[in-house]
């Protein structure tokens, strides 16, 4: 985990211990937490999305004989 994320989570820990409501978080803190998560979001979706796209492509290729392809 990056030091940025550590800092973000430390801020999150502090607020969570005070109630944990999403709406209670300072918007600047939330923006910085969300911003630090963007690369992680992209990588996570790619790791599951790319194989899934490969599987769908391979399967659609297999269905072509059904339509005379």
């Amino acid at each position, binding site marked *: *985990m990056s030091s940025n994320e*550590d800092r*973000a*989570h430390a*801020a*999150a*820990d502090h*607020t*969570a*211990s005070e*109630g*944990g*409501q*999403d*709406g*209670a*978080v300072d918007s600047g*803190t*939330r*923006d*910085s*937490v*969300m911003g630090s*998560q963007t690369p*992680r*979001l992209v990588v*996570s*979706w790619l*790791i*599951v*999305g790319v*194989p*899934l796209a*490969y*599987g*769908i492509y*391979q*399967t*659609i290729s*297999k*269905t*072509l*004989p*059904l*339509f005379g392809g």
Partner: protein
Amino acid sequence: MAVLAFLDREHTVAGPGFSRWLIPPAALAVHLCIGQAYATSVYKTALVAHFDTSLTAIGIIFSIAIVMLGVSAAIAGTWVDRVGPRKAMFAAACFWASGFLVGAVGIGTNQLWLVYLGYGFIGGIGLGIGYISPVSTLIKWFPDRPGLATGMAIMGFGGGALIASPLSSQLMAFYDSGFDPSDATSVASGDAVMKLFLTLAIVYFLVMMLGVFNVRVPAPGWKPPGFDPAKLTAKPMITAANVSANNAVKTPQFWFLWTVLFCNVTAGIGILEQASPMIQDFFREGDGVSTVAAAAGAGFVGLLSIFNMAGRFVWSSTSDIIGRKPMYAIYLGIGIVLYFLLATFGSAATILFVLLGAIIISFYGGGFATVPAYLRDLFGTYQVGAIHGRLLTAWSAAGVAGPLIINGFLDAQGTPGELVAADYRLALYTMVGVLAVGFVANLLIRPVADRFHESGDHTDAFLEARAAESRNGKVPAGRSST
């Protein structure tokens, strides 16, 4: 153990600002891996040749795995709710990868019982725990769109086979130069299947660990911006109360829903099981030759897989808008009409047959994906994972009943390879009856009686266990995140 400290409850609670959109890929990482279970046919023939045994003996591997899925989901459900998704996903990854490793040893040493034990028994436990592990977490993160969230994850189970099937063929060709995946008569060596199992063990473990590290549960009191729980629970079929897993199985609602799932799955499996020979038989002409080639039959199976996967996402998301009960009324009610049309007019044109089959299978997939949200609506979030686990025994039962019904009727009608459309009618009309039973069961579902509801402080099994840990001094109070 210190090295496994990241699995503790205290590290599983998200801090504010954590993006809930990290949870669906975490869930998908698990479901895409365990969805491999539906791709076992790729190496079935190779195992028959390697062990010099029958198809039935090899088919038992898959049967054990599916039975263990139901059993472990039912037994471990309460544990999964209590320890949280991270530890559960880690356990699932360990079981699933170990299953492949033990299976590989079985293939390498020519001992089929080890493949039963490995892939079937140990891997099957991984299937059950993995299947339910992200469900209650998704429901908590997406209280506004639970159908969409669980649809995304359970779509992964359907998608897993789409990935594993071509990937396994290509890997076996890589490990065995004499194997040609494009030639239907070519069979991979046992050594290639063993190496495939070893590769899958490593790859699946790593991908599932992505889920382990990304998954979090929301902090107590968290809700998505703009979400008003009162609006949701104002709807008549959505409860604000919570029911424990032990109490849920005492309610008629649980058993009506069990029947709904059982009927929906039984009917769908009936078609999935027979898809390739079925389309060829429906278009067999007087000379005994089918106008649908074997390659086109395989294409039909692929098309059904796509619709099975897509239906999980599309229909489950739709249920967020129209409600769970109307959605199942569509799966089962329109399903009745579609099965009837398939049995009566399916042989009129290939495109009609394909279209009917595709919609039917999309409803089959949708039925799986919508059920966790239906459970949430009826029983609340307290132990929804455990209740889901117990409900999945309906899947195991349908996995036995569906093929028994269709094969029983077809065996009585004639010899495989000589059957025609008319030979399928009785079996398909029976499925119409099965769906009708499910339709009635769905109509009978009403909100759960107050006497089954938990007291107000039982709302989240995971957070409750975490709070108990804090009270016992095992966790610093208030600490959360990472």
